[in-house]
């Protein structure tokens, strides 16, 4: 068990700056996730921690010890590969006990440890199967068990759920989290799936173009993003571009095409700055009461029934488009919101952030 410190880590491949000056503290025993779109450098960062890539600058410390110049096979880390990289020619138990085998542990002890780990991942009695006989979720867990066999201080997971179908993926989130709680090892997890990141992690670092934009727990990240990119990448968000016209102790007033909007401001904002107001679809109310600060008229363009909720697509003055969600039980008779409606949202549920790049679709 150990904390991991990244201290100004950069990785360059020739002209490509894959990781830029990343400094992050991962607490001992935490489930820490790097979240970002593909190509943001998170895999490179993980490979730097595991020792397959040498940082061009900065230092990586595991349990306080500098890892510079230490090869992957000598680091207290274990990596769960994106494609799992199970050894197809070995039965499950030999896969799991591989780390012990290369350390010269006797066969009986290896088998015993493999059986313990199979117990841990809720697959007792599967030791003599071959990997190709297992289901996708089972292979997943075997890969985790194999990585845990050597008792690493840090477990690194490289999008291990991406190959699974949706239901299994959601199930495996819970499994992984449960395994992590049981063994107490520090998990560093990378993914481009923000649902995965939010559901499992103690802390999430959002990355864009090699740099870490924000490190926070899931709720803070969702409710209080620090940048337009994080606001638009994590979860769904509606955006109103505008200019800050006033700032008071709690709220900013932003002039947008939908009128003056009140929202919680980021501390960097000043009066006169270009700003973006973000509001989540579930924060938008239909026919809001008088105490809701931000109100506007809208036209329902379409609505889609998604089972647990309705998704309503609205058009506002000034060519703005807004999506709102309504929980199914709450919806009007068959959710037939149509024609002109009045919508609104509370200033507490909206954030005003400095203008910046948004996450692409």
């Amino acid at each position, binding site marked *: 068990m150990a904390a991991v410190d990244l201290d100004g880590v950069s990785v360059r*491949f*020739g002209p490509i700056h894959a990781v830029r000056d990343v400094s992050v503290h991962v607490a001992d025993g935490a489930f820490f996730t790097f979240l970002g779109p*593909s*190509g943001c450098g998170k*895999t*490179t960062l993980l*490979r730097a921690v595991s020792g*397959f*890539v040498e940082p061009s600058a900065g230092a990586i410390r595991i349990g306080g010890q500098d890892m510079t110049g230490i*090869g992957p096979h000598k680091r207290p880390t274990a990596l769960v*590969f*994106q*494609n799992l*990289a199970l050894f197809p020619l070995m039965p499950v138990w030999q896969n799991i006990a591989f780390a012990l085998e290369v350390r010269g542990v006797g066969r009986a002890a290896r088998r015993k440890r493999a059986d313990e780990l199979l117990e841990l991942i809720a697959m007792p009695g599967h030791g003599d199967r071959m990997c190709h006989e297992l289901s996708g979720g089972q292979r997943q867990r075997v890969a985790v068990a194999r990585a845990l066999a050597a008792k690493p201080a840090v477990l690194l997971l490289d*999008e291990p759920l991406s190959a699974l179908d949706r239901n299994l993926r959601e199930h495996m989130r819970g499994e992984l989290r449960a395994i992590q709680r049981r063994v107490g090892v520090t998990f560093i997890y990378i993914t481009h799936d923000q649902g995965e990141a939010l559901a499992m992690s103690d802390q999430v670092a959002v990355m864009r173009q090699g740099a870490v934009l924000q490190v926070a727990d899931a709720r803070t990240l969702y409710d209080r993003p620090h940048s337009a990119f994080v606001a638009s990448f994590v979860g769904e968000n509606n955006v109103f571009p505008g200019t800050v016209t006033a700032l008071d102790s709690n709220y900013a007033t932003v002039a947008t095409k939908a009128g003056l909007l009140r929202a919680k401001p980021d501390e960097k904002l000043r009066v006169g700055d270009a700003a973006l107001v973000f509001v989540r679809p579930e924060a938008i109310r239909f026919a809001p009461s008088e105490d809701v600060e931000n109100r506007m008229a809208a036209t329902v363009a379409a609505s889609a029934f998604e089972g647990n909720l309705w998704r309503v697509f609205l058009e506002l003055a000034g060519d703005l488009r807004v999506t709102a969600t309504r929980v199914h039980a709450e919806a009007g008779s068959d959710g037939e919101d149509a024609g002109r409606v009045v919508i609104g949202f509370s200033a507490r549920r909206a954030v005003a952030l400095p203008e910046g790049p948004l996450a692409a679709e």
Partner: protein
Amino acid sequence: MNSGPATPPGTFAWPRAFFARYGAGLGASVLVLVGFWILALVLVPQLAMADFSFRPNLPPTEQGGPRDVYTLEHYEYLVRGGAGGEGEYNTVDLAVLGRTLLAALFVAAVDLAICYPIAFLLAQSAHGGFARLMMVLLVVPFWLNEILRAFAFRILFGTSGLVNDVLLGVGAVEEPMDFFRDNVALYSGLTYAFVLLMVFPLYNALEHLDKSQIEAARDMGASWLRVHWRVVIPFAKPGISSGCAMVFMLSAGALATPQILGGPSSLWFTQIIYQWFNTGNNWPRGSAYAIALLISALVLVLVAMRVFKVRLRDLGK
């Protein structure tokens, strides 16, 4: 995002990455084995032979002595003939070289023509047991070496061989035919010898052709001929070119089959090389002839590749 180590840039980075991946012991073994092969078995012997071909034919005691100087005499001999042949050309040897290359081209063309339908059938239409049976029948003859295969043709085409027996039997000919003098036996034997070398590259290329491409072309109203001309053959081009290159080179360099099946008027160029070594006892001249064969055959292959717009990396796939 996916696997694969990031290849560090720069030429000098790779040995480090190489040893990091294989370790000192294994890495060194790999380098030693590859180095021994490429240098001591492939490159340097070819260069030694080239060097040797520019030396006069001297007894061992005089090699390295004052008379051991570079000379073009062996190449001159190939082109101009021996002493007294001033102004003349060595028509005999040059004709043999030309005929060998032409005949090898012919063999490659015939092999392509007869193997293409078979490879196409095998790759696209045949399934299960039938495909496996075809595969076995294709492979079985090639468990025998070239000499025994040539021997089989010799039995077949002899004056009292089966072919003549049949021809005489049905009254097609009055006298037994001399298949050796007419080179029928030689060309059939060579064509036969390299069938497999043509079928497999073609098969490998055609196997990856998506059937729906053919169906799409058929669906759009293309005739079978056009489907092959526009879809299948362009797709199989790498296979066709490597098959043809291999068959051509191996036919041109064949020795056993011409020795066994060759007729009185069809000496193969390799046989002349063989004579210089074994009975002519003139190794440098044999080397020069070998280089002449190698270079002229390679030039032909390269020209053909240029004409048909085939890249080198497509060969050997």
